[in-house]
């Protein structure tokens, strides 16, 4: 189809779609007047039933925990897909760590800030991860923050240090075990005759860090998995760059 034909046809179909969307949207409840039963029902029940104060995470890891299991495995599958698409044949992977050299010498200021920045990011990430059931946060957010902290090393230190840290097999194994742990936490209640993903750990007191039972536990396993998978993705893309750089030199 020529570009002109594409544009013309889209300028017919697109506005029709937008008009249908607008026509339908006029029948929606006015903005700001949410009146559905689902959110209110859960908001009334959460603190009493699960001793958790962050409703969004309670929904994610408990009421609709099955959705989050699927979502975590979406993340796992996509990372598996990326590692499969960009895989290198075993013979093509020489020992790159010795040959990695950063082109621009790092300034002293950057290197001085590196370690404190890493420490602060890691502590912040752990804080967010552990307090998921109390305040906004939880496993996914903590995983991204921790992974970013480690990528700081790549940005501020040298590539070879980052390479040493994200040694392929440990990161991969951690990722898979984090994903599997969620499924295991779901299966364990079945042995006691309870339904899948039932919250079977003592709930503790509201407001405590170690409260709300399996919500905190699942949040932790998700955090581990997300950290490992983001590191793995950065590592795989880094391999692409290194492979490209090596072939340019030859």
């Amino acid at each position, binding site marked *: 189809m020529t*570009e002109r034909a*594409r*544009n013309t046809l*889209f300028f017919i179909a*697109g506005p029709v*779609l*937008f008009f249908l*969307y*607008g026509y339908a*949207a*006029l029948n*929606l409840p*006015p*903005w*700001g*007047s*949410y009146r*559905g039963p*689902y*959110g209110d029902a*859960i*908001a*009334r029940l*959460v*603190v*009493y039933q699960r001793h958790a*104060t*962050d*409703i*969004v995470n309670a*929904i*994610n890891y408990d009421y*609709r925990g099955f*959705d*989050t299991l699927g*979502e975590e495995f*979406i*993340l796992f*599958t*996509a*990372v598996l*897909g*990326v590692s499969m*698409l*960009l895989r290198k044949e075993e013979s093509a992977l020489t020992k790159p760590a010795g040959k990695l050299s950063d082109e621009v010498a790092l300034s002293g200021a950057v290197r001085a800030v590196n370690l404190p920045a890493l420490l602060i990011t890691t502590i912040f990430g752990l804080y967010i991860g552990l307090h998921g059931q*109390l*305040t*906004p946060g939880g496993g*996914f957010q903590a995983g991204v923050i921790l992974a970013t902290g480690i990528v700081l090393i790549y940005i501020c230190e040298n590539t070879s240090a980052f390479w040493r840290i994200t040694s392929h097999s440990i990161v991969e194994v951690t990722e898979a075990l984090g994903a599997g742990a969620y499924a295991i936490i779901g299966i364990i209640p079945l042995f006691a005759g309870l339904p899948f993903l039932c919250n079977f750990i003592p709930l503790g007191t509201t*407001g405590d860090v170690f409260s709300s039972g399996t919500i905190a536990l699942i949040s932790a396993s998700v955090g581990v998995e997300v950290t490992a998978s983001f590191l793995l*993705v950065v590592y*795989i*893309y880094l391999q*692409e760059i290194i492979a490209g750089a090596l072939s340019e030199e030859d």
Partner: protein
Amino acid sequence: MPGILHSLPYFVAGWLLLCGLYGLVTSKHLVHAVVCLAILQSSTYMLLLAIGYRVGGAAPIFADISTSKLVVDPVVQALMLTDIVVEAVVVALLLAMVVKAHEKSGSVSPNDLRTLRG
């Protein structure tokens, strides 16, 4: 007129959907196409959040407010969290495909990558 104003966030969501589709249809660069897909996804975020909002409602965190206070809908926010993760990884996977396609055929324009015609 008041009817339109009451539905304005929904129109914005519809506009984002249209822009994303237009970008996908007329894209000349595969990375641009992937980003347009992300824009399409943003329209669903806009729609979900607009649906769940309640004027005068507090954030659904009961750490510092009493349980009887009115909060906005937490369910759509949970759905959005799921959504964001899905989008991020779809984009990562698609970009890996683009990198590999560039490696194999040297081009990132959809017009050049037409071995599957006919």
